[in-house]
């Protein structure tokens, strides 16, 4: 598997989230992902970027286009923030659970919208979430 395109961006305000959504959509359109795939990944990107902004106090995202040896294409997003971290990841993934005033569906929903979902977080150490969607 190789990374054919890679591009980093910061998430410091809501405009950055809008830009990320557009970036993800454009990339996926160019790579030939279906409209449903595009919409799912754009929505997950929106959720995770907003989490990084609201709960992580801002962060960064790495957008990567992956090519597998068998020709399969994927899009990977790596979100990183240096916020308070997540104490109980299982609880955070539970639908309806929120420490803010959202719907509490963003994290669990993002997991369902992507093919691979990885959280690396502990209290005080920030959060790193990697999601991938394959074509």
């Amino acid at each position: 598997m190789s990374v054919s395109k890679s591009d980093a961006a910061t998430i410091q305000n809501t405009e950055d989230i809008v830009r990320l959504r557009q970036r993800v959509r454009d990339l996926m359109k160019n790579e030939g992902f279906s409209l449903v795939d595009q919409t799912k990944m754009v929505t997950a990107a929106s959720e995770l970027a907003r989490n990084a902004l609201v709960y992580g106090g801002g962060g960064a995202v790495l957008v990567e286009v992956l090519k597998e040896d068998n020709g399969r294409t994927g899009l990977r997003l790596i979100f990183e923030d240096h916020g308070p971290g997540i104490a109980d990841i299982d609880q955070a993934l539970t639908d309806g659970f929120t420490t803010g005033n959202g719907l509490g569906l963003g994290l669990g929903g993002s997991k369902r919208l992507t093919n691979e979902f990885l959280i690396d977080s502990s209290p005080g150490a920030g959060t790193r979430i990697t999601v991938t969607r394959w074509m």
Partner: protein
Amino acid sequence: MIKINKKISEILTQHKNEIFEDWLSGQLASVSLRLDLVSETELRRQSQEFLNLFVTASLSSNLQDINTPEWDGVREYLTSITYSRARQGFSPTEIATFVLSLKHPLFSHLRELSGVNSNDLIDMIWTATFLIDKLALLSIENYQRGREEIIKRQQQELLELSTPVVKAWDGVLILPLIGTLDSARTQIVMESLLQSILDTGSAIAIIDITGVISVDTLVAQHLLKTMAAAKLMGAQCIISGIRPQIAQTMVHLGVGFGEVATKASLADALAESFKRLGLAVIKPQARG
């Protein structure tokens, strides 16, 4: 340092015309020349004026800091050129090249100086490079600022372009939503819907999201809150225009609109609202 500065300003004053001609011909021969955006006469005028100000400022003997009052004129003129060029569609490279291309003619004249040892020459070139680089960076910064102003203005315009609430029938309002819904615009749009419900005494409000690209949890939350508020005011909401990819995404995300009626198209929503109001659309009977 003062000796170096003095030497540079001497060269600039004595050879101003030659430097100007060299600079201008250099710009005209350059690949980054944009005669489609700026005419030769205009370029000549801008270059002449900039060089005049530059030479005058250099006479103050302070070539190390362009933020001093002596450089006010240069900075202002450069800013005005950059702003107008940013609006005309110049690229950052093309904008920076304007100042940077002054280096070549200036350095050639420094080299032709007689009786200068190589150490002094290097010092002079270093000072001049440093000065011109600073001006180039300033023009890039201004370029950036100019672009940001354009973006900000466009954002403001978009905000004002907020979606109108349309009266479809007596008692039926339609709010066609377009674009992204997590901006400040959403709040304005939602407030205008509630105000229109009050003003028209409408019983049904159709929120059409055909033009919405993606519905994430924040957008869903905005919609849910608006619908709850509308309900408190005695109006029912119908959501229409949920496209297949949005429907699938919402199911995976786990968001729904609860008890609220949703329809695939605006036409279906309108038919539904007629039904609720007890209205029927019928074809006029053919006259026998």
